[in-house]
């Protein structure tokens, strides 16, 4: 079975229709695609208009490759896998992240996508700044950066 991965960090719109078509494999009866989109509020911040994402760019793709490798170890049934993240300024409704996998049956696809997006959000060096009508600040609910298979080191 074709086991290709599509892993990308980009400033342009995420080509999710292409991703969806690309992950389909003859041996896979399930495709799961998760998209994270820009929301117009965040806890008590109303009227969020834009998110600006920044990244420690050279290490985003390697970090997503590690997640892909671990996902394939946990779910060897995965056919194709795609992790795409966007950086720069995005407006409400735009897609910031896309995770897609194909597997022979649905349970593995759903589980693998859920695990992958949860892991991506805690192990990939990306930050978002929320911009609303009368202010801007870094995203709420940020998570201390974790290492896959390593607890990392705190700063002091």
């Amino acid at each position, binding site marked *: 079975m074709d086991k290709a991965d599509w892993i990308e960090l980009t400033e342009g719109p995420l080509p999710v229709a292409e991703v969806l078509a690309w992950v389909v494999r003859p041996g896979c009866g399930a495709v799961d695609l998760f998209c994270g989109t820009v929301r117009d509020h965040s806890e008590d911040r109303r009227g969020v208009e834009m998110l600006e994402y920044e990244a420690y760019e050279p290490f985003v793709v390697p970090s997503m490759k590690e997640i892909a490798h671990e996902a394939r170890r946990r779910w060897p049934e995965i056919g194709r896998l795609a992790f795409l993240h966007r950086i720069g300024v995005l407006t409400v409704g735009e897609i910031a992240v896309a995770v897609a996998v194909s597997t022979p049956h649905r349970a593995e696809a759903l589980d693998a996508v859920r695990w992958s997006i949860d892991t991506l*959000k805690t192990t990939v060096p990306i*930050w978002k700044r929320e911009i609303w009508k009368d202010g801007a600040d*870094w*995203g709420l609910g940020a998570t201390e950066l974790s*290492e896959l298979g390593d607890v990392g080191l*705190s700063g002091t």
Partner: protein
Amino acid sequence: MATVLFFGPARDAAGARSAIVEGTCVGEVVAATVTRFGEQFAQLLPTCRVWLNGDPATPDAPVGIEDEIAVLPPVSGG
């Protein structure tokens, strides 16, 4: 001496994207950033991870001018 990069809230707190900071190991460089960048940065630092050239660093790891230390606050991708 090493180049230190600051991301997200750490960049705001330090008031800089990057700086050349004195020190012969990661721990010394990080300690020097606390002195140099003030209280707001010092408060954020314990929540940050510190990487050396793209990998998690230990405080005793030696550094030189070619090395890149990154201060990575809690992440919020996705």
